[in-house]
């Protein structure tokens, strides 16, 4: 036998590192890749892919820039030695008190003063992505589950499950009642988990909903709260789009429901918030967990060491958000602009024969293309999605990536572009529908 060279075994990685729970191989992200490779630009690449899969709010940048120009000392350190000392040195996971106060007050303003928030219950994190993951780490053990109503934000598969080892059990909602969450659906999901020997630790709702673009009605919130009480589990309410409800009065926060009940049973409720959507500042990485449970607050604070916001950003935002004139104006104008965008796209689609779910919040609409499907199946939906991506050159999100049980629905974002670009997108849809009609006529 010849000399055998020992092949040095390559060093192993963990299961977390090699798992695909990050979900980046799903259509949701494949669309992004297509966009990255051929991004639309009004002048330089007018035939490129228009990104309508990114829920980013760019409609109110001018308001922010105006503020920063007037208050430029907020961006620097005001030349005060003590403020800087507090600033650069600050590595305490409590976060700047001024920032927490400002966040609490901003959250109150968004809810029209209908709920109060205590700055000492605000835990800071680097974005809502981190907040959702962190809350999951605290509320559930590996192998346990959270119930999440469908359709839901595709990122939850990664954020709630990847490192935490926690499962998502879907609570199925459908168009028969406008995708509202029902007690039956919650009970069914719970029973499903029990039958698989999975321990349910809580329900996680997004209100206003992503991808539906609609607020949850008060009566439904009451039902959900009663449900979690009856099962003695937690309720996480992801309210990151609360400032993007077109009419302030139409958004009801779980905080309001709790206040009306005198905070009875509140220790099981936790709210996630972020400035990425409402303020259009996802690059700043600002998220919070607001919990009515002291132990969760304490634990979350310690755990936030893994995901803190730079003190410079905290200070900048503390100034901005405590300026009540600015925030009142911003919230009002932002809502108005989002509402107008929404109507622009809804009307534009309706004129082309496409209906959407009646929405009242968020940076997207929930579009119904099921009439265009060859078969009411996921495969048909994906085929349609592909042709819209590669032929129409629009990156929209297929409902299946949001775990929607009804094929044919798509999430279409409208706030991350100029009005002009939106018009072009609508024009492309118009052309696509025309061709479809012709094809259908020809086939008859």
């Amino acid at each position, binding site marked *: 036998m010849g000399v055998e060279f020992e092949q*040095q*075994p*390559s*060093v*192993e990685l*963990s299961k977390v*590192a090699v798992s695909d729970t990050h979900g*980046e191989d799903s259509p949701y992200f494949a669309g992004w890749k297509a966009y990255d490779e051929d991004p639309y630009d009004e002048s330089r690449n007018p035939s490129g892919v228009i990104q309508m899969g990114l829920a*980013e709010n760019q409609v109110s*940048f001018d308001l922010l*820039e105006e503020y920063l120009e007037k208050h*430029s000392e907020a*961006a*620097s*350190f005001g030349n005060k*030695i003590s403020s800087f*000392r507090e600033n*650069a*040195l600050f*590595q*305490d996971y*409590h976060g700047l008190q001024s920032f927490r106060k400002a966040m609490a007050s901003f959250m109150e303003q968004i809810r029209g003063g209908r709920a109060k928030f*205590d700055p*000492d*219950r605000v835990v800071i994190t*680097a974005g809502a992505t981190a907040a959702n*993951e962190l809350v999951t*780490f*605290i*509320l559930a*053990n*590996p*192998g*346990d589950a959270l119930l999440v109503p469908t359709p839901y934000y595709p990122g939850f598969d990664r954020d709630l499950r990847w*490192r935490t080892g926690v499962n998502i059990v879907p609570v199925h909602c459908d168009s028969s009642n406008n995708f509202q969450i029902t007690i039956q659906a919650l009970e069914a999901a719970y029973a499903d988990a029990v039958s698989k020997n999975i321990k349910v*630790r809580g329900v996680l709702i997004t209100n206003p909903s992503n991808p539906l673009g609609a607020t949850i009605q008060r009566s439904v919130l009451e039902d959900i709260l009663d449900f979690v*009480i009856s099962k*003695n*589990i937690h309720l996480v309410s992801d309210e990151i789009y609360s400032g993007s409800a077109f009419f302030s009065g139409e958004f009801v926060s779980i905080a309001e429901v709790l206040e009306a009940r005198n905070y*009875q*049973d*509140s*220790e099981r409720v936790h709210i996630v918030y972020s400035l990425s959507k409402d303020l259009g*500042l*996802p690059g*700043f*990485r600002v998220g919070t967990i607001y919990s009515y*449970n*002291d*132990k969760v607050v*304490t*634990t979350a604070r*310690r755990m936030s060491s*893994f*995901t*803190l*916001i730079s*003190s*410079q*950003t905290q200070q900048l935002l503390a100034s901005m958000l405590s300026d009540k004139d600015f925030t009142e104006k911003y919230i009002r104008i932002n809502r108005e602009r989002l509402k107008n965008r929404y109507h622009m796209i809804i009307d534009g689609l309706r004129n082309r024969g496409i209906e959407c779910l009646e929405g009242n919040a968020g940076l997207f609409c929930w579009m119904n293309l099921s009439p265009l499907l060859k078969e009411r199946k996921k495969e048909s939906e994906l085929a349609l999605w592909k042709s819209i991506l590669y032929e129409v050159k629009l990156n929209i999100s297929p409902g299946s990536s949001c775990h929607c049980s009804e094929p044919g629905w798509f999430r279409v974002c409208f706030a991350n572009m100029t009005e002009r670009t939106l018009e072009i997108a609508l024009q492309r849809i118009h052309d696509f529908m025309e061709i479809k009609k012709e094809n259908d006529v020809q086939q008859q």
Partner: protein
Amino acid sequence: MKKDQESTPSSTSTGGGATTAMRVIVPLQGVVQGRGGLILGSVIPCALFYFFQLYLKRNRSKGGSGENSPPPPPARSPSGTHLQESSPLQRVQSRSLLSPRGGGSSGPAPLLASRADSIAKQADGPYYVGLKRVSEDPYDGSSNPDGVIQLGLAENRLSLDLVQEWLAENAKESILGQDMSISGIATYQPFDGLMELKVAIAGFMSQVMDKSVSFNPSQIVLTAGATPAIEILSFCLADPGNAFLVPSPYYPDLDRDVKWRTGVEIIPIPCRSADNFCLSTTALDRTFNQARKRGLKVRGIIISNPSNPVGNLFNRETLYSLLDFATEKNIHLISNEILAGSTHGSEDFVSLAEIIDSEDFDRTRVHIVYGLSKDLSLPGFRVGVIYTFNENVLAAAKKLARFSSISAPSQRLLISMLADTKFIHLFMKNNRERLERMYNAFVTGLKQLGIECMKSNGGFYCWMDMSGLIRSYNEKGELELWDKLLSVGKVNVTPGSSCHCIEPGWFRLCFTTLSENDIPVVMDRIRKVSEICKSRS
């Protein structure tokens, strides 16, 4: 004298379960393998042992580590700035204590995950208690001269004035740019950091390490501080229940960073004063084998270079030995080099990256952690670096960085600051000088009090031998002295036991949060306590 290992996560989590299972299986293995003469003589004790383990395991989980304490009255605004830190983990079954209160709850409170609780025990240790005491009563030369002096935080304030000056002049433009446009910082940016900043940091790292090695920006993942950098590497390199070997004493927060949410264990490799607390390869070997016998799978070694709390530098031979060992056992090697720029004294810092460069090692097992908190005095900015030679780790870490991204405006600011090479050069020079001055002043001052410090070449601290002052040569004696220093002397130092040091009586004293004027005050207070201890005996 061996210190207790950090307790494993509670039995409901997978990590604890695995180790418990292992402890049961190992004695049985002997029987299965037919070792030992009398099978019956082995079976019966093993069976007894097995049942004893089961009994213990059941009783441990009854301790209610997953139970909540009764919920407090709702929506109360606590007085003072912080919520009360929760009291030491309640082991008493709390369900029976719950009673419905008006506006409270209609039933028992929902449980939290057991891993949520596992940090509570550690959080009441001296390291954290000391930090808390200082925050409640912080010393200030003029406004609060009787306050507690912070000597427990390895944070560098010695050269803050230089940074502050730069920021005052340059901050605004750096963040918003000349056109005051916000879209460049407001929109979604790559979660693993702006490429411009990676380039700047790669250059800075090289500069800090005296240009002995160059760093490739494409191998960098930026995170919001070194804390998540270490945690992300732990998640990528080990599964729950696996272990990393770490030379002890090591800094207290490493327990949190490596173990808390990952379910990964740390097995300390004890280092001794006789070796100047330097890592010996014999100890490394022995610890690895012991781990193996316990059924623990070792996935890697984590070193800090310069080390914390001792301040040692790893020399070339030791780094080579570590790489040889890691290669032989096919495990990873992580080097936390966050203090590389904070060296003083005559010895040169050698990065693991330099060793890798010069030899034909399998680089895919090498990972370096860095950050700007220490060397640039910028902990508030939260900038950590994972530098890895492993493509797969790089890919995974990039995705995981989304949970710990650096705020875009801060990144822009740092790009400007790091590009100002004149400033950086001036800062590093001044900083090193001040560090060396403070270090020498403290070592001399402590010597006059009869307290020797371990010779160190880096870091923000002195590693003091106060074993002569402790009443009993054990952890209890050490903690009594720690408490005396905190309550009577009103200085917060970190006891060696919090750093898993196996020899009692050693304490870490961080001197970088002080000015030179504070030195006599500190010495005075330590002297007072020292005299109290001496007069006792």
